[in-house]
C-alpha cells in the first residue's frame, strides 16, 4: 500500500460517501418498492399461480373487465411456484404480511384448504345473479362444479380443468406396429402396448413416464381400480344449487376425505402394478418433484406414453412437436374407467374488503368472452364445452381432442384430485411412500402402505 497524502484520502473518502448517498437516493424507490404501480392503492388484487408473463397474458382480460366495470381497478399479482403447494404457502405469507389478495385463483388441490380457512362462500352471490349465470352453468359440466362445493357451499366457478388422460407418441406407436388404442382399452392392453414399445425402441426410450404427485401419479391407477388412498364420502347439502341450476342431477354438497384408505387391498394392487411396470423396465421410477424435463423428453420422442391433460397441447407444440406427432386417449379401464381431474377457478378471500367487486371479477371471468381472452391457446382445457372445439386445437393437435371433454360425459363418476384441507401433509405422505413402494421389491409394498396409512392418519388428525 502506497502512502498517500492525507488530504487525497479525505477527498476520496468524501467522494465515496457522496456517491454512496447518491446511489441510495436514486435506488430508494426500488429498494422500498414504492415504484410499483398500484401498490398500496385501492385496487382489487387478483393472485394467480404463474409468472409475470402469465400476468401480462391476462392484461386483455383485465382491460375487458375494466371496460365493463370502470369503477373497479384490478391488479393481477403473479405468484410463482413449482406447484400449487408453493402457491398456497405464498398466499399465506401475504396474509401474514398484512397484504392479502382479494381474489385467488385456486386449484382443486387447495379448494378445501381455502374453503375451510380463508375463502368466502359464493352462495348468496350466485343466487342473487342466478339469471346471469344460467348460461355459464348450461355450458359447464356439473362434475366440475361439485369439486368446488365444500360442506354444502360453493366456493369457486371453475374456468379450466384437466383430466388425466393418456398421451401417446405416434412414432413410438407406429414403430411398434400399433395404432391408437380404442376407447375401452384395458390395463392389460396398456401393458401389452408398453411391452411392444419396449422391444421396438432404443434403450434410452421409456414406454411409460409418470410423475409422482397428486395429479397423474398413482391416483389415476387407484381411480380406475375403483379405490382411492383416502376414503371418499360426500357431504350433504348443496340442493339449493343443484335444484336451481342443474335440475335432475343427483349431486352432493361436496367431497369429504376424512380417513385413510391406504390399507385397502385394491390400493396395494394398483401400487403393485406400477411397481411391476418399473421393475420390468416399462415405466420410469418416478423422481420426486420431477417432471421438469417431461415436455422436452416427450417432444424429442424419448417417451411412449404419459398421463396428462389438455394443458399439454400447447407445451408440446412449442417444444416443436407437430399435431400428428402425438395423440391422446382415455386412461385405460381396469375395474372401472373412472378418471381423475383437477380444475381451477377464482375464490374470494374472506378477509377482503372488496367482496362485491371481487364477485364481479369472479362472475366476469366465467363469461365466454372472458374465458376466450383468458385461454386463447390450449394451455389448459376451458370448462365451457362450447370452447373445446376443432378450432381451438387446430394448430397444436392432438387430433383426438374430443377426449378432453368427453372424459366428463363418458365417465360420470370421474372425480377430483383427493385434496382435503390438510392437502400438503397428505400429498407429502402419498408421494414419499409411493416412491418407497415402487422403488423396492414386492415384499416392500405392504410396509410402505402401512407407513402411508400411519402418515395419512396423522396428517388428517391435525386440526385444519
Amino acid at each position, binding site marked *: 500500500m502506497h502512502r498517500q497524502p492525507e488530504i487525497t484520502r479525505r477527498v476520496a473518502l468524501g467522494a465515496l460517501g457522496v456517491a454512496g448517498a447518491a446511489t441510495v437516493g436514486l435506488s430508494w424507490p426500488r429498494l422500498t418498492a414504492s415504484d410499483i404501480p398500484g401498490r398500496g392503492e385501492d385496487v382489487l388484487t387478483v393472485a394467480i399461480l404463474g409468472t409475470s408473463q402469465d400476468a401480462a397474458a391476462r392484461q386483455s382480460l383485465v382491460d375487458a373487465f375494466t371496460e365493463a366495470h370502470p369503477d373497479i381497478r384490478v391488479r393481477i399479482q403473479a405468484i410463482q411456484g413449482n406447484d400449487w*403447494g408453493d402457491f398456497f*404457502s405464498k398466499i*399465506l*405469507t401475504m*396474509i*401474514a404480511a398484512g397484504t392479502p389478495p382479494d381474489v385467488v385463483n385456486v386449484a382443486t388441490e387447495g379448494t378445501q384448504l381455502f374453503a375451510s*380457512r*380463508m375463502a368466502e362462500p359464493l352462495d348468496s352471490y350466485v343466487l342473487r345473479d342466478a339469471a346471469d349465470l344460467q348460461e355459464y352453468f348450461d355450458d359447464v359440466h356439473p362434475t366440475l362444479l361439485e369439486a368446488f362445493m365444500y360442506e354444502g357451499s360453493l366456493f369457486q366457478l371453475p374456468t379450466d380443468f384437466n383430466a388425466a388422460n393418456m398421451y401417446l407418441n405416434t412414432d413410438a406407436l407406429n414403430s411398434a406396429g400399433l395404432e391408437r388404442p380404442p376407447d375401452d382399452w384395458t390395463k392389460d392392453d396398456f401393458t401389452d402396448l408398453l411391452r411392444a414399445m419396449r422391444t421396438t425402441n432404443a434403450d*434410452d*426410450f*421409456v414406454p411409460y413416464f409418470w410423475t*409422482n404427485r397428486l395429479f397423474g401419479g398413482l391416483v389415476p391407477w387407484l381411480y380406475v381400480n375403483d379405490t382411492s388412498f383416502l376414503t371418499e364420502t360426500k357431504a350433504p347439502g348443496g340442493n339449493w344449487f343443484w335444484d336451481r341450476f342443474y335440475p335432475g342431477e343427483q349431486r352432493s354438497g361436496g367431497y369429504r376425505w376424512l380417513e385413510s384408505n391406504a390399507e385397502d387391498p385394491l390400493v396395494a394392487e394398483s401400487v403393485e402394478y406400477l411397481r411391476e411396470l418399473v421393475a420390468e423396465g416399462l415405466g*420410469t*421410477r*418416478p*423422481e*420426486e*418433484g*420431477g417432471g*421438469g*424435463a417431461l415436455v422436452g*423428453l416427450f417432444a424429442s420422442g*424419448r417417451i411412449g406414453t404419459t398421463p396428462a391433460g389438455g394443458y399439454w397441447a400447447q407445451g408440446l407444440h412449442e417444444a416443436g412437436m407437430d399435431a400428428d406427432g402425438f395423440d391422446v386417449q382415455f386412461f385405460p379401464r381396469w375395474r372401472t374407467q373412472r378418471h381423475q381431474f383437477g380444475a381451477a377457478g377464482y375464490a374470494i378471500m374472506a378477509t377482503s374488503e372488496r367482496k362485491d367487486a371481487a364477485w364481479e371479477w369472479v362472475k366476469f371471468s366465467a363469461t365466454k368472452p372472458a374465458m376466450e381472452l383468458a385461454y386463447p391457446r390450449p394451455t389448459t382445457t376451458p370448462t365451457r364445452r362450447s370452447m373445446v372445439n376443432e378450432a381451438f386445437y387446430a394448430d397444436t393437435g392432438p387430433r383426438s381432442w374430443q377426449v378432453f371433454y368427453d372424459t366428463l360425459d363418458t365417465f360420470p363418476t370421474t372425480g377430483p384430485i383427493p385434496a382435503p384441507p*390438510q392437502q*400438503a*401433509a397428505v400429498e*407429502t405422505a402419498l*408421494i*414419499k*411412500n409411493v*416412491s*418407497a413402494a415402487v*422403488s423396492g421389491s414386492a415384499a416392500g409394498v405392504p410396509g*410402505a402402505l402401512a*407407513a402411508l396409512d400411519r*402418515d395419512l392418519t396423522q396428517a388428517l388428525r*391435525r386440526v385444519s
Partner: protein
Amino acid sequence: MTAAALPTARAAVDRGSGPRSQGPAWRRRVVVLTFLAPTIIGIGIFTLGPIVASILLAFFRWDIITDPEFVGLTNFVDVVADPTVRVSFINTLVFVVVAVTLQIAVSLALAVLISQRMPTWARTFFRSVFFFPLILSAASVSIIMRYLFNEEFGVVNWLLSLVGIGGVPWLTSPTASAVVIVLVYVWQQFGFTFLLFVGGLASIPTEVYEASSIDGATGWRQLRSITLPLLSPTMLVACVMAVISALQIFDQPYVLTRGGPGDATRTAVMVIYESAFRQLEFGRASAIGVVLMLLIMGVTALQFRLSRRFVFYQ
C-alpha cells in the same frame, strides 16, 4: 488464513492489544459502542431476537393466520415421537460424516498436489477450476445435476454404459440418491476447504521441508510428520465450517429428490421447511429447529474439545 493468523493473534492478545490512555472511561465506552453498535444491534434484531422468538414459538401451535395457541411441550413430544423427524436427523448426521470426510479428503489431496512443482499457469488454472463450482448457486447446480443424473436420459448413466454399467437409478433408489446428494454437495463445496488448505500449506515455512529433506524424509512421511501437524489449525477451521454448513443442508435434496424416495434423503432442515411452509405448523417447525440448534452447538463444542488433542500450534 485464519489459522495462520491465529498464532500472531495470541501473541498480540498476550501483550495487551488495546490502545491505552484514551481519555476518560465513559469516552472509551462510547467509542467501543459506536464501533460495535451496527453489528450488535443488527444481529440482535435480525438473528438473536428471531432465535429467542422461535424458541418461544416452539411452545405454541400457530398457522400464521389465526392467533397462536399455547400448547406447552406438545410440539416437542410430537417431534420426538415422529419417525420422519427421527429419520431426517439420522440422515443429516450420516450425511455430515460422509460428506465432510469426503470434502476434507478431496480438498486436502488436491491442495497438497497443487503445491507440487508445476508451471504457474497450470497452478492458476487448477486453482480457478476447483474454486469455480462455488460461484454457482446451489439451486442452479441442483437443476443441472438433476438432468445429468437422470436414470434414462442422463449423461452420467450414458458414461457408465460405455464401461458396461447399466442404468443406475440415481435419484430414485434410496442408496443411490443419498450418494448423489453427497456427490453434488461435495462437488460444489470442496473448493472452499481447498482454498483454506492451499492457504494453510502456504504458511508452512519452506525451511521445515528443507530440513526434513536433509534428514531423508520424503513423500508420505513428510506429509504425515510435517504437513498434517502444521496444517492442523487450518484443519480445525475447515472442519468446523464444513460441519456447520453440512448440518444445514437443504437446497440439494430439496431440488434433487424432495427428500425421497421415502425419507431416504430427507434432512433436518427440510423437515423444518416442510412443517412450516407446506403444512403451516410453525410451532412444530420451531421445535424441530430448536433441537437442530442444540445439535449443531453440541457437535461444534465437541469438535473444539477434540481439537485440543489433535491440533498443533506452531
